[in-house]
């Protein structure tokens, strides 16, 4: 009798404890519903550091009748675990897919947290090569930047691959997602996720909202991709960084398009006039300053990248 009470008590304690933990997690790692069954966590609009624990990119999940798909897992194993707890706070369904929108560390380094689930990891077919080429560089950089928050982080590559010309459809049970890869844009391995049911699009870093877009692929490719994405009929858009967009979602793409077409035009003029990268970084796109967060951190870098691409036109 005494023993039984003890057992019950501990069970209650554990249950309360678990609830408190879930609650604590929900406060620390809040997720917001964008459309029915679609949740995202908005990363902070900063560069990765120890204070923000590298939790700078948007992550989230889509719940079907049968199972759940995760879209991007965050910047570390620990962030992946927080996301997993946030998912479990909403649903007990199995996680059948982990979708990575591209091989940047803030988006896929949480993959290890989903290793124990039955999930299949999906990505652009150029993503494994991109991870291999950058792994040691990222590992050194981010273990240094994040310190203890990097603990347990692994570089897990997608095994189901999506090529540019062959979008795939996956089914979560009464919920079909279309996964599309793109020619080199933000990176050479971008992928989007379209929920057909609610017409919600996860863009990965093909769309930055408020934060300045970072060019690590091709300015010409990215501008072409923006045109394609703007032509889709959508109700909501979840960018790689910044808040989800609803009826005015096209304006977010317009801002990004304006930024890149402005700098492209000015860089082309400088190249045609035999100017240098330094000439370009000092004069190009200054009208865009003030419109974007982290402008000083990325703008000149974007110009450098665009310049070395455009001089081969």
């Amino acid at each position, binding site marked *: 009798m005494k023993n039984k009470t003890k057992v019950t008590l501990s069970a209650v304690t554990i249950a309360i404890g678990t609830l408190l933990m879930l609650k604590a997690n929900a406060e620390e790692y809040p997720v917001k519903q964008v459309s029915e069954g679609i949740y995202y966590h908005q990363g902070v609009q900063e560069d990765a550091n120890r204070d923000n624990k590298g939790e700078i990119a948007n992550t989230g999940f889509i719940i079907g009748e049968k199972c759940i798909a995760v879209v991007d897992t965050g910047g570390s194993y620990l962030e992946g675990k927080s996301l997993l707890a946030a998912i479990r706070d909403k649903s007990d369904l199995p996680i059948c897919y982990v979708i990575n929108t591209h091989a940047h560390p803030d988006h896929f380094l949480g993959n290890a947290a989903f290793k124990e689930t039955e999930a299949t990891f999906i990505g652009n077919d*150029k993503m*494994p*090569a991109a991870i*291999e*080429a*950058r*792994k*040691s*560089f990222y590992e*050194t*950089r981010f273990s240094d930047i994040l310190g203890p928050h990097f603990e347990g982080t692994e570089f897990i590559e997608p095994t189901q691959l999506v090529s540019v010309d062959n979008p795939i459809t996956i089914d979560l049970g009464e919920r079909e997602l279309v996964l599309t890869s793109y020619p*080199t844009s933000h*990176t*050479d391995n971008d992928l989007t996720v379209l929920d057909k049911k609610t017409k919600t699009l996860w863009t990965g870093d093909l769309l930055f909202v408020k934060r300045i877009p970072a060019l*690590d*692929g*091709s300015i010409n490719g990215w501008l072409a991709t923006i045109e394609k994405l703007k032509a889709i009929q959508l109700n909501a858009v979840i960018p790689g960084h910044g808040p989800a967009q609803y009826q005015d979602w096209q304006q977010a793409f317009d801002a990004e398009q304006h930024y890149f077409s402005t700098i492209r035009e000015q860089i082309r003029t400088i190249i045609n*006039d*035999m100017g*240098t*990268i*330094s000439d370009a*970084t000092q004069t190009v796109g200054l009208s865009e300053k003030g419109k974007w967060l982290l402008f000083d951190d990325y703008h*000149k*870098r974007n*110009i*450098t*990248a665009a310049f*070395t*691409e455009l*001089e*081969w036109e």
Partner: protein
Amino acid sequence: MNTLFKNMGLTALLSFFLLPVLSMAADEPQEQWQTLKEIYFENKTILEDADDWLVIEAPKRAEDAAIVPIHLYSKKTQTASSYIKNLHVFIDNNPMPYSANFHLSPALETVDISTRMRVDQYTYIRAIAEMNDGSLHMVKRFVKASGGCSAPAAKDQVAAMARLGKMQIRYRDGDSDEAKPVQVVISHPNNSGLQMDLKTRGYIPAHYVEKMQITLDDKVLMTIDTGISISEDPSMRFMLPAGKAGHGLLKAEVTDNKKQIYTIEKHI
């Protein structure tokens, strides 16, 4: 063997031991230079008296450590009696600090060169002008950047390999009486040997441009010994001698460490 790499083994070894110490003692960045100076200049005197005529421009903080724009120019015109014979460029804390040697002809007239380099750690970048009389004059700049040599190459790996060896000579049309900028650029990965290979998980073997020679009407304007400090797609922008634009055949010949030779020529 390329003169630039004569002492590579030794410097690489020194870098290996010295760099960790240096990165801790960031306020003593001159230490590495003392060693480099002994290796490459023995006991010759290097004057630091050139600030009013020799200029090295580089960003204080590099935006992209793999592509750091460097601009070198002299306010003195090259003449047969007084000219910069060699312009040595050192990036103290790079794995291969001796980054380039520009062998310059008096025929070049104007020394005004822009290129792009990798910077691996916070470092001094130095330009040492070796005059035809043998005197040495140094200017330097401190640059904050890191990771340029081990940074992953090519943003678009497939596209970069597809255009390997493609070259361009670019120049500005117009009045031929003044010095005109010309750019020679070659598409080449210029692998540092410090980037990881995606399949073997080992390091991608170094594959870099070793030498660039630029001639105008068969007269050598400059020959450049280069190495892994030069960015992917090596680019050299310089000034044509005054009055030469409009009637000359400019040729560029590029040799990489696999002894592949790439050439381009253009009437300008």
